[in-house]
């Protein structure tokens, strides 16, 4: 089970409160976590990554275990505490704009 923390706007969009818990098929990577997230909440498609290129949106970052995972390969295994559900995978909106 993977725990995911979404930014406020995406929680509202997905109609969820607090963390989201996901069952991820196969290896837990950024790609499989986002695939599972979008499958469960189709309204989130396109809000975190481009729907065609699957590139992360510019004003979003992915964090876990106090590390910035934004530039880690999408198919690399997530840190063990995230895989084991001890730590959440954080989707973070850039602090920018007004």
């Amino acid at each position, binding site marked *: 089970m993977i725990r995911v923390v979404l930014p406020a706007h995406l929680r509202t969009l997905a109609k969820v409160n607090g963390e989201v818990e996901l069952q991820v098929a196969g290896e837990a990577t950024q790609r499989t976590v986002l695939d599972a997230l979008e499958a469960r909440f189709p309204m989130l498609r*396109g809000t*975190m990554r481009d729907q065609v290129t699957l590139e992360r949106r510019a004003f979003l970052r992915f964090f876990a275990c106090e590390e910035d995972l934004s530039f880690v390969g999408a198919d690399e295994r997530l840190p063990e505490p995230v895989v084991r559900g001890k730590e959440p995978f954080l989707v973070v909106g850039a602090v920018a704009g007004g």
Partner: protein
Amino acid sequence: MSSVRLLVGTRKGAFVMTADGKRKNWDITGPHFAGWEMYHVKGSPVDPNRLFASQSNSWFGQLIQRSNDGGKTWEAAGNKFVYDGVPGTHQWYDGTPHPWEFKRVWHLEPSLTDPDVVYAGVEDAALFRSSDGATSWEEMSGLRKHGSGAGWAPGAGGMCLHTILIDPINPKRMYIAISSAGAFRTDDGGESWTPINQGLRSAHIPDPTAEVGHCVHHIAMHPARPDVLYMQKHWDVMRSTNGGSLWQEISGNLPTDFGFVIDVHAHEPETVYVVPIKSDSEHFPLDGKLQVFRSKTGGDDWEPLTKGLPQKDCYVNVLRDAMSVDRLDSCGVYFGTTGGQVYASPDGGENWEAIVRDLPAVLSVEAQTLP
């Protein structure tokens, strides 16, 4: 008794405002999609309770929302806007080639006959169509590929397709406008497009009478006379009596002919409204006086309408999609400002009153006349 519903898009959410035929007391709901930029919200003429809304921001991109109950509840619809083929480049501000990139939906235009068909005008400029109620989208790429696309350039607000007009008599004919490319017409349902900018003169582009490159801000049409078009260009108010094939300036006695909005009275095809703005570098009314100007003669001869509008210290703007009219016997006229006011006139512009004064900056206003 008939009623009116206003669909108001703002920088930080959408609002739905309803009133009975007197249009005196308004019930306001919102913000819907609080914190998001709501560029446009519009209802289907076939099924007025079916609404489409463009929701976006820089962090999470573009979403489309759909309501089937007049805005009480909403559901996320399709937001996959993919250009047909390799989109290539258009001109950047400095004249260099710049890749076509989807940014947002500026305008949603529901079909006049089918509640499942809706058109989307997007930035970077292109026209998309959905035939399944906004669940999926397909580019009508004949527009972007008609030949001049590589020469289109963005205006200050981006390279946006912001105006979509459907001819109510000839369903194969549509008009669109792009800042800064100009106006285009299709006569074959969107397969092919023709630039319709003859008669426009824009001193700020290298060839002032070029076929494309004009910064058209908005176009309006009266449904009873769809060959007659009114245009607010960057500078100049224009009119065409032949479906855009030739334009003539009708700025006449306007104190300034810069502006964004233009609209036509519901029952008088020759009665036109604009809100003059001081200049392209000073986007607010002249002398701090908010004035709607009305022509009852199809242009040239304009009168200021000021009763109920602030006549001092007013420095707001009225953006291109932020004016609309209802179709009640006494035509209501509505507009929203970047200062967050939404003004209503239940009598064709004679008297104005603010429905609300402190919304986020208003991006769009659409009036629905309900049975």
